[in-house]
């Protein structure tokens, strides 16, 4: 039978456009040391290290776990490298969690990062491939038509995307680690920003960030640290092909299947009523209403109505992305892990100014590729 797994330490860097003060090793070590300190542990207490990031081409460093091993205290230990596109930060946490739930290790350090200032992600995403549809406009160019399709299907009015853009940046003002701190953000400021990929304007898109995230995961008999553990209640990954006739790119089946699996493990039958807070991968504003529907928080076509009514706002009944989310910090490889980490912080009551009171069950979600790779977990304050 599977063992219980808990988050006992979290750490993240200050996310910025350029972290010129640190190397890649310095960046990941900053997050890892913070996670170890939070768990009241040192490097020697860790059994294995799992690291994840988005394509190696982003920094031009192939299989960087080789270079980063000493910086992460992995010498002499098992070290594992995950890459599942944008969902990788979440998948990395799940691979680490399975090393605990399988009973193989007692304490595992998982780390995810991106140093976008060392790279040009837009270029790296746009290398022409033989026999493949060119993606010449980065991720936004790929997702904009899907957003248009969502708007057409649901009848959502144009201002919904702007509302999400404002809400998440206001939340980021409560998070000292967030990349963007736009104190005077409002609907007009978003509306006046440059159109990038119709209907997405500049301020409806995520920034390019340098940053890292780290967590220490532990078996039940190895829990440490001063904050209470966040227990893993459910975890799952799902993938589907990038394209084929009949695929619903707006509401992907893999996302629905992944959440159904996680909810079944966690005993969730009514996500909106049972989940106290969620951190969901929203790199472009419109993905909030789209994922509200995909994750079963409402009926199809109603996601935008929840956003419009303020249900996902800091003061709403289902606060989403109180950290500011991907719209406020996007160190790509780490963005998924930050979702998983932030909900653990909420459960442990350590989220500071963006803490929601009394969180007992929380959902972290990440997606990647052409909305085709999903990873999710549900963490809670009680043992599962």
């Amino acid at each position, binding site marked *: *039978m*599977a063992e219980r797994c808990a988050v006992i330490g979290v750490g993240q860097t200050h996310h910025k456009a350029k972290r010129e003060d640190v*190397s*890649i090793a310095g960046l990941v070590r900053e997050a890892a040391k913070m996670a170890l300190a939070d768990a009241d542990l040192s490097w*020697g207490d860790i059994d294995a*290290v799992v690291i994840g990031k*988005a*394509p*190696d*081409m982003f*920094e*031009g460093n*192939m*299989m*960087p*776990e*080789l*270079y*980063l*091993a*000493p910086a992460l205290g*992995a*010498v*002499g*230990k*098992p*070290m*594992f*490298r*995950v*890459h*599942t*596109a944008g969902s990788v930060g979440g*998948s990395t946490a799940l*691979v680490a969690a*399975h*090393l605990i*739930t*399988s*009973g*193989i290790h007692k304490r595992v350090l998982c780390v995810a990062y991106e140093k976008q200032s060392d790279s040009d992600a837009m270029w*790296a*995403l746009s*290398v022409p*491939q*033989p026999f493949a549809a060119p993606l010449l406009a980065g991720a936004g160019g790929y997702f904009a038509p899907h957003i248009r399709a969502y708007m057409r299907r649901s009848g959502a009015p144009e201002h919904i995307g702007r509302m999400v853009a404002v809400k998440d940046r206001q939340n980021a003002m409560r998070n000292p680690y967030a990349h963007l701190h736009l104190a005077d953000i409002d609907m007009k400021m978003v509306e006046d920003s440059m159109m990038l990929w119709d209907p997405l304007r500049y301020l409806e898109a995520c920034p390019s960030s340098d940053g890292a995230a780290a967590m220490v995961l532990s078996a039940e008999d190895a829990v440490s640290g001063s904050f209470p553990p966040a227990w893993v209640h459910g975890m*799952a*990954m*799902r*993938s*589907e*092909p*990038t394209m*084929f006739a009949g695929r619903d790119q707006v509401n*992907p*089946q893999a996302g629905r*299947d992944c959440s159904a699996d996680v909810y079944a493990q966690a005993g969730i039958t009514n996500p909106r009523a049972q989940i106290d807070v969620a951190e969901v991968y929203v790199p472009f504003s419109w993905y909030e209403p789209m994922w509200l529907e995909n994750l079963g928080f409402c009926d199809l076509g109603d996601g935008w109505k929840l956003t419009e009514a303020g249900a996902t706002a800091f003061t709403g009944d289902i606060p989403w992305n109180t950290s500011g989310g991907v719209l406020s910090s996007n160190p790509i490889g780490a963005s998924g892990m930050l979702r998983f980490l932030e909900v653990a912080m909420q459960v442990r009551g350590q989220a500071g100014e963006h803490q929601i009171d009394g969180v007992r069950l929380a959902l972290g979600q990440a997606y990647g*590729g*052409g909305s085709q*790779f999903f990873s999710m977990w549900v963490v809670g304050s009680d043992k599962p």
Partner: protein
Amino acid sequence: MSAAGRSARSVRPVRPVSIASFAQSQNVRRDEEHNEVEMLLPVIAEVFGTIGITKDDVDFICSGSTDYLIGGPFSFVTALDAVGVWPPRAESHVEMDGAWALYEAWVLLQEGEIDAALVYAFGRSSLGNLNEILALQLDPYYLAPLWPDPVSLAALQARALIDAGKGSEAEFAAIAARSRRDALGNPKAQVANDIPAATLLEDDYVVSPLRRHALPPITDGCAAVVLAAGDKARAWSERPVWITGFDHRMETHSLGARDLTGSPSTVTAADVAGVADGPVDVAELHAPYAHQEIILKEALGLDDGVAINPSGGALAANPIMSAGLIRIGEAATRIASGQANRAVAHATSGPCLQQNLVCVLEGE
């Protein structure tokens, strides 16, 4: 803390998981006819077909590959079309050799909630210049800008081995000659011949002390494995090949801080995997350079009675990202056929054997 000084063996019972099926492509110098999906399709079909199952019979899929060979991001994304993950499937990917993808799937099978997994790996080394590509594995600030190529780094290791009195050019040639001769019995091998070691020693140096024969070929290829536990393991194999021990360990990146003549990470992984718990009949070692077989043989504690790399090993075919997975498949094949009862399979990653994986297999 030294890796070797710390016993990491656990008392945890291991759930038996079998290598139920293995398939690999023809290994070739340059496959210009097929893209990655087209290379994988017949291999995936074979790995399922030989045991009469379909993708619907596996609960998890994990692959290993690197974007750097194809020169584009997310090369694993389109490769997934070779499986056809519809309806959606539980699936993951490692930017590592497929042997580590197999490890991830084995971990999930340990939990007892799923019983079968597909693992595959692929790499077309011919698409770029491997000497330049693999230099990008190095520290991006202090080493990669100097573009040290992998052959030169391996030559440093070989020279250290000679200086330490642990190997000679004649021994490297003997290993190469034996490997390519054994490869004559492997229809998937890329380089197979029967050339005496003495003749090989007449080669010019590529990088002293390594001559052409001591280097791995540059290979395009892919491979797949089906893992099974419980009733499926018995239903899919007449003689299940069980994984009885499995571990992998990392060393530091700085070559100057390592004793290149030994492999402490392999020593630790072998200890945790329990290599010494019984006699070893066959060892499939991922030793791309001939001299690395000497280092690995010592680290694994293998005596002269062990048949090493009867497939020809990485000197006969070295498809990047699947060569390690193939070692596990080749070792399992010899147990399934009754030629061996207990085998060790090994995979490596990084310059000069920086990271090593050890898998112990036993027949029933």
